[in-house]
């Protein structure tokens, strides 16, 4: 293992950028390219935003935890909230599916496309865990749609 960082913060919109920047800094310690890091930032932003918006439904007093592990192979990111949870995970992950008519339902699509693996665990009334990883690749030998 190269490094491990845990961040715990309140469900505020301001903290989305904070989590994004912290993970980007950490990813910079492995052999990711700048464009890899840009994509990892989008995935983190989506997972943390979902915790704020949907998990805690705008309440500012919920905890969100981001646990990042970095090793030679790449980065693993776990984003966890103790909010309302997801009733139907499969449906929630479908492109275009959103609980909010104003939103596009693209968050999970971005996480899936920009990372090399995404697992979602959730229980109603208990919360949600989003687990993502991305491998360091050599001159694009692993394409973005490899899961």
């Amino acid at each position, binding site marked *: 293992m190269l490094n491990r960082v845990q961040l715990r913060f309140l469900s505020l*919109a*301001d903290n*989305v*950028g904070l989590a*994004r920047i912290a993970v980007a800094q950490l990813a910079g310690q492995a052999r990711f390219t700048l*464009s890899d890091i*840009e*994509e990892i*930032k*989008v995935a983190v*932003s*989506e997972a943390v*935003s979902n915790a*704020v*918006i949907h998990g805690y439904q705008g309440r500012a007093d919920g905890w969100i935890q981001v646990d990042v592990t970095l090793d030679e192979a790449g980065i693993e990111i776990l984003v966890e909230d103790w909010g309302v949870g997801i009733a139907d995970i499969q449906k929630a992950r479908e492109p275009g599916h959103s609980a909010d008519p*104003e*939103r*596009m339902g*693209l*968050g999970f*699509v*971005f996480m899936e*496309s*920009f990372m090399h693996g995404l697992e979602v665990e959730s229980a109603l009334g208990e919360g949600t865990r989003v687990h993502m990883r991305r491998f360091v690749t050599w001159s694009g030998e692993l394409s973005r749609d490899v899961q």
Partner: protein
Amino acid sequence: MTIIHSVHRQYVHVRIKGDLDLKTAEPLRDSLDQLIDRYGDKDLVLDLEDVPFIDSSGLGVVLGRYRRLTQQNRSLRLEGVRPSVKVVLELAGIDSIISIGESPEGRPTTPQPQA
């Protein structure tokens, strides 16, 4: 995030500076809607040269303004789009409905003479 706008004969040019995410989505939506209403006959050009980051919350605002404008037979154009933002727009398929101009750094360089 800050925005600066200038009014032209056919369009309002809006230069946005900063990340477009959950934190900035609401103020951006409010400012753009105000401009759309105030200049009711003009198109909108969003200059994203100083926008290094966008996620689905930011995209939602852009797409929502696009919908509002097209309902009124007006258009929305994006300008100065950086590679990091373009990847996200493309993944969302937005590049096929909204006209996108790239930033200078994202443009292909002039072809070099072959050795």
